[in-house]
């Protein structure tokens, strides 16, 4: 790990055209940046381009940038580029579902793997009243528009909207309940093991 003073020293050196210092920065962060992007976009060429652009850009601006935390600067750049890419490319159904699941779980403070989160929400969805569940699944998992759902079920668009917000309300509530009991479980855990 690089210490902060070290990073600042490296930045000072690249500002005076030191390519070795630049390579050291690259070697320290590029792997993590590539991995981070790869996990999201899954397309190697695109994330390679993104990382290349970020470092080329850093070199071009080396005399002008004022970076206090290099790691967060570089990762902010990766995130920005990923959103920039997602913005102009088609989102998959999977990504759409993921986005909605994340949206639902915004009030959970626990640090969960997405797969766990998906399961918990799946559970909550399973407990929804039938009609409400059917409409929520059509909307959030099969990405039908409200209008499509209304036509298919022969109900009004407003009724679709009502059912969806009802579903969201119930799911959010049960997620909160889980949060409340969770700390207790964790506290007790050592005694069971």
């Amino acid at each position, binding site marked *: 790990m690089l210490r902060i003073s070290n990073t600042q020293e490296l930045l000072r050196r690249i500002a005076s055209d030191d390519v070795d210092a630049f390579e050291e920065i*690259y*070697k320290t962060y590029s792997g993590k940046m590539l*991995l981070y992007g790869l996990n999201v976009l899954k397309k*190697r060429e695109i994330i390679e381009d993104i990382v290349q652009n970020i470092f080329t850009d850093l070199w071009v601006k080396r005399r002008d940038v004022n970076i206090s935390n290099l790691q967060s600067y570089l990762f902010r750049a990766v995130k920005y580029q990923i*959103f*920039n890419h997602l*913005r102009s490319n088609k989102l998959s159904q999977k990504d759409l579902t993921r*986005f909605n699941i994340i949206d639902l*779980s*915004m009030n959970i403070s626990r640090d969960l793997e997405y797969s766990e989160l998906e399961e918990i929400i799946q559970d909550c969805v399973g407990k929804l009243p039938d009609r409400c569940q059917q409409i929520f699944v059509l909307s959030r998992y099969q990405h039908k528009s409200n209008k499509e759902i209304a036509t298919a079920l022969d109900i009004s668009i407003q009724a679709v909207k009502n059912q969806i917000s009802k579903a969201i309300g119930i799911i959010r509530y049960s997620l909160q309940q889980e949060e409340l009991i969770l700390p207790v479980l964790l506290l007790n855990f050592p005694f069971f093991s």
Partner: protein
Amino acid sequence: MDNKEIKALFDKYIRNECTDEEIALLEKFLESYQKKGSDYDADTLETLEVSKDKVWNRVRSGIEKEERHRPVFPLLKYAAVIVLFIGSALYFFYGTHKVDDGGQVLQIEENAIILKTGDHTGQKLNILGKQPIKNQHGKTIATQSGTRLVYNSSEDVSEPTYNEIMVPYGKKFQLELSDGTVVHLNSGTSLRFPEQFIEGSEREVFLDGEAYFEVTKRKHQPFFVHADDMKVAVLGTRFVANSYEGNKNYTVLMEGSVSISDKTTRTKPQLMIPGQKAVFLENEIGISEVNANDYIRWLQGELSFNNQPFPEIIQKIERKYNVTIKNEYERLNDLKFRGRFNDETILDLMDVFKETAGFEYKIEANEIIITTP
């Protein structure tokens, strides 16, 4: 949230207009893809090393190129370096060669580079040879060798005599003007320039197409590039780039300083700083930050598109390879692509492109026709 709402959120993020809650949501979305801990398999980690090396080599060759292009004394040598790109296309026919795709044969026109001297006679330049260029009085004004033409006349003249060079699709050319300014002309481009700049008066050239300028610094002799309705004034010690995309004229500045103005609307000239791109929109000049290197990749023969709409990409390919491409798969027109090609033949390029973009193509009547898969 549906596709549209999510895209709108990405847009807001890019424009830096998100609320804290929205940023938290977006961050959490990205985080959700990340594995906790470091349980990656050996395969992933190995390919990661490959990517790391590959990207480093590209970054390094990129910065070396930048260093090589940078004059030793940038402040002394060039007043500015610009790329310009302007609309209408040139087309000259001359000979053909064939690309064979197992039955589907594509004939590519081999067009000549044409130089018009003061008396408006045009001559085809033989790009394999070396020759002196004479004016109507039989005096040597320039020397051409291969795809480079150097003007070195030093007569005492009071009126500029304009020459014009026309570079067809599929070719590139390099020109050194009498003041030492170097101009790289891309395919489908013409430039009108004086045989010799007149001492004490402004230096003016007229561009149609795309060009990269390295303008020699002359304190009392400003340099102007006129390109369609765009006028670029090279100001100070550092550089500018200018260019055009689709039907919009644009300029990108690499180095130095230029001001840019619209001759039709007579808007106030806009000052540009390096790394900026000025695009001519309907009623205004839009300035944005870009990666300037993306705009000069064609100098190295590279064809690159960075999130460009499909119709613009088609135009670029047509210019570089001197082919005609018809798109019958309309949905593609709404998509943007990113990519980079080097020395591929046109058909290799199409084969790679069709895989990623998901189309088919065929060759008919000497045209490449893109079809629905």
